[in-house]
C-alpha cells in the first residue's frame, strides 16, 4: 500500500488551563490521500479546531506523530498551507485583490505573477469585477469567497477550512457548497473541512471523519461513495440518508 499524503498517528493535544489539564484531542489516527476532501464533524468544543491548528503547524501535538508530505507529494510547511475560518477575516483597509495577495506578500512571491493568479482566482470564485472593492462593499458570502481565493493564491497543497460557511444563511450555504465542490475539483487540492452540518460533511467529503465529544477521539472514518460531481439532489438519495443516520448514531442524536 502506498504511503498517504498526511498521516496522523495517535495524535494527542493537552491544553494547560489554570489548574486543570484539558485533553482537547486524544488518540486521533487517520490517513489522508493527496487530493482528498476530508470532512471533520463532531460536537462543539470536541477539538476540531485544535486538530486543524496542529495540521497548520500552529500547535505542536503533545503525543503521537503528524507527518505531512508523503505518497510522492512533497510538502513545505511554511508555504503549503492555506486557511479559511468561519469569519472571512479580510483586512478592511485593503481592496479585495490586495487581500487575496496577502499570503503572496508574506511569502515574498513575485508580485506580478501573483496578481495575475489572484485575478484568475477571484474569477474562479465568482468575484469577477470586485477586485478593486473594499470588503465592506461585499456580502458575507462574497467575503467568504474572497477568503477562499486568498487561501489558494500561493498554490498551497493543503487547505484547512474551519466551519467556513457556519455564519452564512442556509441558501447561501448550499450555493457555497456547490461552488466549493467545483473549486476543489478544479484545483485538485487536499482539503480538510471542519463543519457542524452533517449533510454538508457528506455532500462535500470524499471521506468523513467523526470525532466524539471532548476529548476528540476518532469515532468513525469512512469513504463517501457518491458519484462526483455531486448535485444538491444527492441529498435526497437513500444512500445519503444512510450516511447521515450513521453519523447521527455516532453522535448520539438518534
Amino acid at each position: 500500500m502506498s504511503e498517504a499524503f498526511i498521516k496522523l498517528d495517535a495524535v494527542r493535544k493537552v491544553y494547560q488551563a489554570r489548574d486543570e489539564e484539558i485533553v482537547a484531542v486524544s488518540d486521533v489516527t487517520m490517513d489522508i490521500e493527496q487530493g482528498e476532501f476530508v470532512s471533520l464533524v463532531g460536537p462543539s468544543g470536541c477539538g476540531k479546531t485544535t486538530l486543524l491548528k496542529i495540521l497548520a503547524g500552529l500547535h505542536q501535538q503533545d503525543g503521537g506523530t503528524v507527518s505531512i508530505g508523503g505518497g510522492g507529494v512533497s510538502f513545505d510547511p511554511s508555504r503549503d498551507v492555506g486557511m479559511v475560518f468561519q469569519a472571512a477575516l479580510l483586512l478592511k483597509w485593503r481592496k479585495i485583490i490586495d487581500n487575496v495577495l496577502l499570503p503572496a506578500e508574506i511569502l515574498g512571491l513575485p508580485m506580478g505573477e501573483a496578481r495575475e493568479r489572484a485575478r484568475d482566482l477571484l474569477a474562479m470564485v465568482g468575484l469577477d469585477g470586485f477586485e478593486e472593492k473594499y470588503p465592506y462593499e461585499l456580502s458575507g458570502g462574497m467575503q467568504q469567497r474572497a477568503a477562499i481565493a486568498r487561501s489558494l493564491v500561493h498554490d498551497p497543497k493543503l487547505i484547512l477550512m474551519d466551519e467556513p460557511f457556519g455564519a452564512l444563511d442556509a441558501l447561501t450555504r448550499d450555493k457555497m457548497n456547490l461552488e466549493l465542490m467545483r473549486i476543489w475539483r478544479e484545483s485538485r487540492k487536499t482539503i480538510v473541512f471542519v463543519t457542524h452540518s452533517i449533510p454538508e460533511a457528506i455532500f462535500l467529503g470524499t471521506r468523513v471523519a467523526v470525532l466524539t465529544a471532548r476529548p476528540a477521539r476518532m469515532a468513525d472514518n469512512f469513504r463517501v461513495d457518491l458519484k462526483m460531481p455531486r448535485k444538491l439532489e444527492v441529498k435526497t438519495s437513500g444512500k445519503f440518508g444512510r450516511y447521515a443516520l450513521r453519523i447521527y448514531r455516532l453522535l448520539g442524536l438518534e
Partner: protein
Amino acid sequence: MTTWMAEKSKHYGLIIAIHLLVVLIWYLFVEIWDVPAYVMPTPQATLAALTVDYNWLANTKVTAIEIFGGYFIAVFVGVGLALLFSWFRLLNTTLMPLVVSLNMIPKVAMGPLFIVWMSYGVIPNIIIAFSICFLPILLTTDRGLKEIEPDLVDLVRALKASRWQIFTKIQLPGSLPYIFSGMKVAVVLAVAGAIVGEFIASQEGLGYLMLQVQVTLDTAAMFMAVLLITLVGVALYLLVLALEHVFVIRDSRVQ
C-alpha cells in the same frame, strides 16, 4: 462632485461662522459691560498686542517645538512600547504596572527637579510634554493590538510570517483607528505639558512670555499668548486629523 463640494464648503463655512460668533460675543461682552482693559481686552486690543515687540515669532516657535517634539516622541514611544508589550508578555506583566504608577507622578511637580538636573531650556519642556501625553497613546495602541483577531494572526503565522511582517501588515494598520483616538486625546495634554514646563523652568516661549507680561498687567498680550498657544494646538490637531484621513481608510475609521 459639485454637490460634494457644496457640502464641504457649507461645512467649513459653518466652522468659521461659529468661531466668528464667539469673537463677536467676546467683543459685545467687553463693550456692553464696559470691562476694564486690564481685566479683559477687546479682540482688537488683543490683536494690537502683536505690534508690541514681544518676540512673538521666536516665542511661538519655541513653544511649537516643545509641543510637537514632546508629542511625536510620545507617539513613537507609545506605539513602540505597546508593540514590545504585545511581543513579550513578560515585559507586559512587569513593566505595564510600572508605567501606570510612573504616570501617576504629577509631572508638574517634576518641573523644579528638571531645572536642577538639566537647567533651563527647551529639552526639559519637551520631556514634560512627552511624559504627560504618552500614556493615552500607549493604552489605546495596546487596546488596538488586542482587538486584532487571533485567527488572522494564525493565518499568516501558518505561512511563517515574521514578527515585523505581522506588525506592518496586520497589527499596525488594524490598530490605527485606536492609535489615532489616543493621539487626539494626547494633543491637548502635550500643549498643557509644554506650557506648564515653561511656567516652571524657561527663559523663552509663550508660557514664559505670559509670566513676563503678567507683571506689567499687559492683559492684551496675555490674551494673545493664550490665543497663539491655542492655535499651535489646533494646528497639531489638524495635522493629526489629516494623517488619520490619509492612513485610516474607509470603514476601518468607523468603529
